């Protein structure tokens, strides 16, 4: 068959599978072959789960044969960020401390994709435990941006974004703690959704910051993202912060969507300031005009505490992460250095050998922020300012239905450019972290290209407003073709 299967949308692939013009096994083999051929240059995958994938593909083909248990994702391959537990398949968080860890259970998101017959191709690279904005902090290797191999793919879900952008998976699961889905989606020119905290179960997601972490889909269009969200969202008794009672039919709502009349979109002035790249600025202004052209009313709003989001986010992250990472001690699972005399030696030597520099830095800063004498001045102060930032969003979203901003102040930076200066790297997250402090959802949509690198637009809304965000993004994509542009390696 003269057909490049990796170029097809999920919807088009589903039609081929349904008409049985292609089998899921053929499709899966196409992707596995493409990964073998192209991924050595990009390095988006940490683990390729070929055996599991082919077994799941044959099971999906059986469903098509019998016509039972078919959904839009049946037989469709995908990749998952390596912090999402997969039964029997290595789940490393791109950390040496978990290099050989094989979970004995599936996370709920993976279990749900299994139940609809989707195919796990493998696990994708990330900054170690999600700590970073470039995948340069991976304990294994740095993923390349498919648009320009000298540049980072963004982070921390950089492998997931790069795999989707290079045609190495039709969709991917990412995880967003402080921009980790949106930022790499923007840098790699794909569509990514940071879901409302509580919308997708965190059960089986290895935690970084328990009060920020969310699982979200990344794909090549808003429509494909909606299909994935339908499959993974929903209440889960195994996650005490799960809060969705019923899941809307997101893709049906997109099929019905005609225009944006009646919606008021706020443009926070604090996001269009000095330091914003001029190409990013003009791409955003053009995109906002398109949104206006679809019938939305556009108004300027203010999020006055924006400049405090970075210190608040990082202080809470340091504290919660240092506590979450205390369990990696070489006793029950993961790396264990046993060449000392005492139990304390096991702890110290295992953590010294297993954690990368950024992890140690953050554990240290978190331990400091939580320690006696400093707790009130740092951790408590940050939690109080978090309230102010949340109130900013509540006020802005009372006056407007959604907010539009850039995802990042620049396009993807060069590999090595920020790695020696941690503070500089932290500042690249300036437009994405506030969303996690507020717990609201946000969609990242490609809206331009500058010097061969993609630009992303961020659309934010109130809690559980995914349906509206997807509608805005989808209608934007019916008017523009940025999401259909691909890097050169796409054609290989």
């Amino acid at each position, binding site marked *: 068959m003269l057909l490049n299967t990796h170029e097809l949308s999920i919807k088009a692939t589903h039609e081929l599978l349904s008409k049985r013009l292609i089998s899921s096994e053929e499709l899966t083999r196409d992707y596995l072959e493409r990964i073998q051929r192209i991924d050595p240059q990009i390095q988006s995958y940490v683990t390729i789960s070929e055996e599991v994938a082919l077994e799941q593909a044959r099971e999906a083909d059986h469903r098509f044969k019998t016509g039972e248990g078919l959904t839009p994702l049946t037989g469709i391959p995908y990749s998952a960020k390596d912090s999402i537990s997969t039964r029997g398949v290595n789940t490393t968080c791109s950390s040496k401390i978990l290099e050989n*860890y094989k979970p004995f259970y599936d996370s709920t998101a993976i279990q749900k994709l299994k139940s609809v017959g989707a195919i796990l191709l493998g696990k994708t690279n990330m900054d170690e435990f999600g700590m970073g904005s470039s995948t340069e902090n991976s304990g294994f290797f740095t993923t390349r941006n498919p648009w320009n191999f000298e540049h980072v793919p963004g982070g921390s879900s950089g492998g997931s974004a790069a795999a989707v952008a290079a045609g190495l998976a039709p969709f991917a699961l990412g995880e967003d703690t402080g921009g980790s889905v949106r930022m790499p989606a923007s840098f790699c020119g794909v569509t990514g959704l940071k879901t409302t905290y509580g919308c997708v179960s965190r059960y089986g997601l290895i935690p970084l910051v328990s009060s920020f972490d969310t699982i979200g889909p990344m794909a090549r269009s808003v429509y494909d993202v909606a299909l994935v969200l339908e499959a993974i969202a929903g209440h889960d008794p195994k996650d005490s912060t799960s809060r969705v009672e019923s899941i809307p039919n997101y893709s049906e709502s997109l099929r019905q969507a005609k225009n944006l009349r009646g919606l008021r979109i706020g443009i926070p002035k604090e996001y269009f300031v000095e330091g914003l790249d001029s190409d990013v600025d003009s791409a955003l202004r053009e995109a906002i005009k398109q949104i206006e052209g679809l019938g939305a009313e556009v108004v300027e709003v203010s999020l006055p505490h924006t400049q405090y989001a970075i210190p608040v986010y990082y202080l809470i992250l340091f504290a919660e992460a240092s506590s979450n990472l205390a369990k990696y001690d070489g006793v029950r699972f*993961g790396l264990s250095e046993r060449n000392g005399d005492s*139990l304390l030696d096991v702890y110290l030597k295992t953590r010294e050998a297993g954690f990368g520099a950024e992890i140690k830095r953050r*554990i240290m800063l978190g331990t400091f922020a939580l320690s006696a004498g400093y707790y009130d001045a740092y951790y408590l102060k940050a939690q*109080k300012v978090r309230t102010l930032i949340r109130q900013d969003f509540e006020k802005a979203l009372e006056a407007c239905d959604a907010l539009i901003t850039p995802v990042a102040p620049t396009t993807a930076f060069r590999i090595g450019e920020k790695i020696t200066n941690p503070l500089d790297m932290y500042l690249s997250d300036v437009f994405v972290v506030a969303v996690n*402090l507020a717990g609201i959802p946000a969609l990242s949509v490609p809206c331009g290209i500058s010097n061969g690198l993609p630009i992303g637009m961020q659309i934010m809304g109130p809690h559980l407003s995914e349906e509206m965000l997807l509608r805005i993004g989808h209608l934007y994509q019916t008017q523009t073709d940025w999401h259909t542009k691909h890097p050169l390696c796409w054609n290989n």
Partner: protein
Amino acid sequence: MSKKEEIQVDEKLVKEIASLARLDLTKEETETFVSQFQDILKYFGILNELDTENVPPAYLSSANKSVMREDQIEESVPTQEFLANTPQSKDDYVVIPRVHIEQ
């Protein structure tokens, strides 16, 4: 908030924190962290511009109702499966080096 503005990061503080965090830092790491922490904490000092005297801390990302449920007996993971990831085990137990009391 004067305490925060006065904070001076030195080797002694970094070593104390490392000991609390169970991290055995090299000399180079300790030195790097001293200067990096000073910069990072200085930048974070901008939070002191805000008066938060009457602002409540935000501990939960969203208002949740209680999620407690009745106790239920469920099948648990077979011990051997659980121990498959354990560095060292014997007879269904996790093995660690002997714990002795240091003087």
